[in-house]
């Protein structure tokens, strides 16, 4: 069922990035970020939960949000590669957040006109959250890009490492195209200009350049991930899977 699978792609993006961000909790560079990062993680996980729940209901086979999150394997996960990239350092983490939010903000704004009521509801909440994530992560990209020699070098390294995962954000898989044709989800390719504008503005202040991707990495939507996702899922799913059928 195309809409079900297209919603899973979107939910997986949010859960995996939320999980990555949550890994920082208690280990951030300053107390204020120990509070901000869980906030962003909670936004993302909250969106994922609503989307899983909705997808499960549309599918009609009784799958709950937890069935979908905890009982699918690496090859069944449909998130884009960007969100599964490891935290590395604060520069990578903030740039990943900025890239993702710069995509999701116009995505949710467009989704305010979705033909699906639940998607419209999610969009109304999430576009505001993404605006805040752009601001928070964007300010950090600027601080680090135009900070010290070390921070600038780390920001450039993060740009080098992550820009190859950007193009995949704008690809629509076959199931996404079906959902787009039905007016349920926005057309991804149409959001490129918005994304470019947001990134250009911040990069200009951050003294960073957008490199041209020599070769864009893709595969997440087909379940062809990097090697890191399996480890993330192993950790995330271990307790749930060790007690089949248990309630938590």
């Amino acid at each position: 069922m195309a809409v079900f699978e297209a919603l899973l792609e979107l939910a997986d993006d949010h859960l995996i990035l939320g999980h990555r961000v949550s890994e920082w909790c208690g280990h951030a560079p300053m107390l204020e970020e120990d509070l901000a990062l869980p906030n962003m993680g909670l936004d993302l996980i909250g969106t994922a939960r609503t989307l899983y729940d909705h997808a499960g209901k549309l599918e009609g086979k009784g799958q709950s949000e937890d069935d979908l999150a905890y009982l699918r394997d690496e090859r069944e996960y449909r998130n884009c590669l960007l969100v599964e990239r490891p935290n590395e350092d604060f520069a990578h983490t903030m740039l990943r957040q900025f890239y993702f939010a710069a995509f999701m903000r116009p995505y949710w704004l467009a989704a305010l006109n979705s033909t699906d009521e639940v998607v419209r509801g999610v969009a109304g909440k999430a576009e505001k959250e993404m605006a805040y994530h752009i601001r928070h992560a964007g300010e950090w990209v600027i601080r680090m890009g135009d900070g010290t020699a070390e921070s600038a070098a780390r920001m450039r390294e993060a740009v080098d490492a992550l820009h190859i995962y950007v193009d995949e954000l704008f690809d629509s898989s076959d199931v996404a195209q079906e959902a787009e044709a039905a007016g349920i989800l926005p057309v991804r390719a149409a959001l490129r200009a918005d994304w470019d504008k947001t990134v250009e503005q911040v990069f200009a202040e951050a003294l960073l350049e957008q490199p041209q991707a020599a070769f864009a990495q893709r595969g997440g939507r087909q379940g062809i991930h990097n090697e890191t996702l399996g480890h993330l899922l192993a950790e995330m799913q271990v307790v749930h899977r060790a007690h089949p059928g248990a309630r938590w």
Partner: protein
Amino acid sequence: MYSQGLIGADGRTEETPEFLERFQRRIDAEEKIEPKDEMPEGYRRTLVRQIGQHAHSEIVGMLPEGNWITRAPSLRRKAALLAKVQDEGGHGLYLYSAAETLGVSREEMTEELLSGKAKYSSIFNYPTLSWADMGTVGWLVDGAAIMNQIPLCRCSFGPYARAMIRVCKEESFHQRQGYEIVMTLAQGTPAQKAMAQDSLNRWWWPSLMMFGPHDADSQHSDQSMAWKIKRFTNDELRQKFIDATVPQAEYLGLTIPDPDLKWNEAKGGYDHGPIDWDEFWRVVKGHGPMAKDRIKARKKAWDDGAWVREAALAHAEKRRARKIAAE
């Protein structure tokens, strides 16, 4: 429990008897002491250490629970745990701010934590070994903290007392959330119930130790009580905690790991078996099972984050310079 850091501290003060008497009259009249008011040096030092230790406890306390965020067994629990650990960080920030009103900076306090000079509640030097610990820590550890913190809402020092009001509201939510996790496990599969019992077995005695030594062995109570920083003694608070918690365990069908625990009709409370004070002192003195790991984790976060903090400062400086140049 946040006065563990006062053990061995010098509480002397050198003000004149008239000054001390004037101060004590304000305390006895239940007036709040505010940051710019005159206060004995010993009062200020006691509060800096106690609030600092309380703040450090919140920050280090993020680690044992943070240990399970990535493994929480349902999305609902994952979100709730993340929010809870975030709350602890918020309490830390709040408390550091309260301590800063007494003339000590957050950076100084952080350095004292990382160097081992400042203490934090020893409970956080025990490991969290199963998901059930996320329930038990909320139920018992936050439960014990509330017993200690409710009276602190009436502490004579205004900023600390006011901070505690909000902190207590959140802690009480955490306690109920923890209890609900344990209840779900206790009513779950045999393996889940065993997990809950094992967790209670490991956390019961350390939770009782959180209240500190018996009154007879507690050096700092008298002065702190007179200054109304502290309102109840260690043993009084411990007794309240036991009396509130035993029926909760019974309701869950879990067994408190104390064969000597029994209701004492005459005193209207429970009698309990002997506490292992050797273990208590060992952990307070820094030999808890996770003591080295906790400080190592905090130190790593601080050191790894140094370049980020430097970048933020450097950028702010550049902005300021540009603004001045433009004027």
